[in-house]
């Protein structure tokens, strides 16, 4: 049932609108709307009940184990939401002067400082509103840096073939062409391929470490020297920062510029697809190009720095100062963990991933990189299962839904066939991991015994498997009332 189907003409929510009777006296008739507005006419109870019922059709961290690889679906502490929504923070207008928000700006300034501490970078800007916008900002800074030196022929960004799709897409938005670098059999960047690719056209290399294959890039120092030696810069995609917090920093690995996903590593909610936040960190040579605004401090007074303070900035990425409410949630989370807690994140995320990898291997699953340690995530490949039974990674993912688990990431990275990318995160207990491993084992046995049962999953969700081909062929992107021609 759609909210529109609950609608009854004339039903009103008197408490939720200003008194009627005010006229739009100052607006010329030719500017006025004459078309009816297709919003539902429902009571407050109708709306609350409808959207509560909808929410109950979702799997979420609060209701289910959610081992979605590369997304770091850890518990989102409730207090982070409560404190970010304190009335004064909630009511603050983005155009309000800095001196009316010193407490708010103090939180953001200290967040910048903590992010510098955990990454080793020299300066941080909180402006990017998601990881991909952080990538855009980072690559734009690389370009601004080369341009500022008159080094314009560097028109190419190198990206490993295992990278997130956002990496090449972000590079293209900055006007670069993208060159892919192959991965070796153990999941490392193929150093020979990298050597062959770098040159005077190389603007930089974008790297995720640990990589999307769930392994630490062992040749990182050699890679650093190759790229820097060719005059390129090193970009760190912080998607997997959770795996190394307090163990090794992007700065020590030689990265010049990084982005951080606060909605992954620093536990801000994923919200059904955002809002996230993708702060960027840089070393000294890229600091002049940071996106605006940056929170500055002089004599215990906090101030948003703008174009006059950073005239070489790549500019603004949003109308205001980024996803401020998300930043406050990350701030609360980081203060609650403290220095020691930060290190425990990587320790226990890694312990959980290696434990689950060992348990799944024991259960008969094929690990993609058996000779490697898992980082905070790992890959299982179902290539052989598919050959024997016809059961695919997607089928296993759907069957997991029946057993009360959200599925791992499927079919990414693209280079491992029939893959499941599994990231348990540090906030899950051994008992949860054991239950998941047991469910996986049941599915494996079922795939051998009764493959059709797995292939036709899910059976227990609010709907059965959905026809995506039909959705794309016969586009239905908005509801239309039967009796009304739009």
């Amino acid at each position, binding site marked *: 049932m759609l*909210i529109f189907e609950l609608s009854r003409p004339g039903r009103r929510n008197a408490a939720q*609108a200003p008194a009627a009777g005010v006229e*739009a006296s100052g607006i010329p008739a030719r500017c006025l*709307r004459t*078309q009816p507005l297709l*919003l539902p*006419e429902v009571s407050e109870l109708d*709306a609350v009940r409808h959207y*509560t019922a909808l929410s109950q059709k*979702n799997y*979420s961290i609060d*209701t289910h184990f959610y081992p979605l690889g590369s997304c770091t*679906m*850890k518990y989102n502490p409730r207090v982070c939401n409560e404190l970010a929504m*304190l009335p*004064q*923070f909630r*009511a603050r*207008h*983005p*155009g309000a*002067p800095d001196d*009316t928000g010193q407490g708010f700006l103090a*939180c953001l300034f200290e967040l910048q400082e903590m992010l510098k501490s955990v990454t080793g970078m020299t300066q941080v800007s909180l402006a990017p509103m998601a990881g*991909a916008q952080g*990538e855009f900002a980072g690559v734009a800074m690389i370009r601004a840096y080369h341009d500022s030196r008159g080094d314009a022929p560097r028109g190419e960004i190198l990206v490993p073939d295992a990278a997130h799709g956002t990496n*090449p897409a972000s590079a*293209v938005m900055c*006007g670069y062409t993208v060159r892919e670098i192959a991965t070796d059999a153990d999941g490392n960047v193929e150093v020979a391929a990298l050597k062959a690719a770098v040159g005077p056209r190389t603007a930089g290399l974008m790297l995720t470490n640990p990589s999307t294959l769930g392994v630490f890039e062992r040749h990182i*120092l050699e890679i650093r020297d190759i790229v820097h030696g060719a005059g390129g810069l090193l970009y760190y995609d912080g998607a997997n920062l959770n795996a190394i917090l*307090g163990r*090794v*920093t992007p700065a*020590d690995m030689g990265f010049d510029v990084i982005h951080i996903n606060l909605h992954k590593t620093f536990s801000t909610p994923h*919200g*059904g*697809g*955002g*809002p996230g936040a993708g702060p960027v960190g840089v070393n000294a040579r890229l600091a002049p190009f940071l996106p605006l605004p940056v929170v500055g401090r002089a004599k215990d007074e906090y101030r948003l720095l703008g174009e006059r303070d950073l005239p070489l900035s790549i*500019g603004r990425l949003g*109308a*205001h*100062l980024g996803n*401020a409410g998300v930043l406050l949630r990350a701030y609360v989370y980081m203060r609650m963990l*403290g220095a*020691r807690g930060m290190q*425990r994140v990587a320790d226990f995320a890694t*312990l959980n991933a290696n*434990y689950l990898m060992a348990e799944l291997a024991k259960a008969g699953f094929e690990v993609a990189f058996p000779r490697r*340690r898992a980082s905070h995530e790992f890959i299982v490949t179902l290539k052989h299962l598919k050959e024997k039974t016809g059961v695919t990674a997607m089928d296993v993912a*759907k069957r997991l*839904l029946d057993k009360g688990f959200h599925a791992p990431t499927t079919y990414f990275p693209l280079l491992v066939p029939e893959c499941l990318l599994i990231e348990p995160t540090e906030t899950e*207990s*051994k008992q949860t991991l054991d239950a998941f491993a047991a469910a996986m084992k049941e599915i494996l046995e079922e795939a051998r015994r009764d493959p059709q049962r797995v292939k036709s999953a899910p059976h227990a969700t609010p709907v*059965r498997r*959905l026809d995506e081909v*039909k959705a794309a062929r016969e586009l239905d*992107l*908005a*509801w239309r009332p039967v009796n009304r021609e739009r």
Partner: protein
Amino acid sequence: MPFIPHTDEDIREMLAAIGVASIERLFDEIPRELRGGALAGFPPALGEMEIARLMRGRAERDGTYLNFIGAGAYEHHIPAAVWQVATRGEFYSAYTPYQAEASQGTLQLLYEYQTMMASLVELDVTNASLYDGASALAEAVLMAVRAHRSSRKVLVPLTVHPAWRKVVRTLVRNQGIELVEVPYCSESGHTLPGALARFEGRDFAALVIPQPNFFGVLEPVDELTDWARAGGALAIATVNPTALALLKPPGKWGGRGADIAVGDGQPLGAPLAGGGPYFGFMACRRDLVRQMPGRIAGATVDAEGRRGYVLTLQAREQHIRRSRATSNICTNQGLMVAAATIYMALPGPDGLAAVARACHANTLALVSRLTAVGGVARAFSGAIFHEAVIRLPVPAAPVLNALKAQGILGGLNLAHDYSGLGHALLVCATEARSEEDLARYAEHLARIVGRRTRPAAGALKPGSKT
């Protein structure tokens, strides 16, 4: 250990299962010279009570102000139900609905949102959100250039929000796109169709048309849209969703309607929150949908023929198309859209129009009270929606400071972005402002401006010669 559930016994058993002696060993693939990573200057942990005390102290110190600033972020009443439902864990802590069968709540909500938004703008299709209005405008510019094919030039009136214009510049400049400024009429405060004559005969990918514009003034959208489409350019509307309950929707502008509409969804249930998170919305004609960036939900059926919802047209997106995607956007502003959908459902069509009328009436009342103060006048003659530019007889910055000392944020000073306008302030009074609020602002403004335009009373001593 905050948020880590492991007992000592769990840890022992897990290490034994892996076959290592310590957690330390799990990091042995990291080159030794890199390991260490001391967290210099990182503060120690705080408990929930301590962090709550710290945050409450800071919030109280910041306090609250009586707000008359709009300029792209508007203080509206948000029904209590909106965020109580939107922050349910099932919405708050889910992610992008890739596993559709486990995400029907979010997906159906997106479909309902797309329906509501398509109706607001009267265009065929909308996406599931972009970051904010400014970045949505940048994406619209990129989309128009892709769709147009022959031109990489876009006309951007100076009546478009100055911060939005900066964002567009940041996001498109590395792709060889030229943004050409269009001046406005200094009397009416809007773009004159005649001002476009100088661009006649040149090839442009698009014309951006704001309604209302940054000054709160209504643009001649029909003429501007027709001009764009007659010259083969796309018409990109930037609109305020509250205003659309009252104003002619972009799909009906001119003879054929705008091609793309974008805007900031903040007025639909997002708290001001210091600048975000808000969300950007984008809608377009059906034939442009494959050029649209961002996620789109679509209806389909399941294996038993029941209605269900999925993310669709994913072949446009970065996780499939990589370097040839329509945009790099991945995570968008999902939760803000959940709030906006609930927000729009609560007041319904009449209620949202009532909100729009109340904002309009309040701003007219505010302008009338403020311009009753000696020397204060409206800067432009054009009709407005819910913002207006007023001109003061004295510099705006000290006046705003004096108002701030009384707990009033009196508007946005336009001295930096529009220095030619004199001592100009952009003011806004939404439905959240009461008669008493307006009176309070006017009284303080009269006192402050009066003191600054007259010689101080003490300077006139009895018997002194003047």
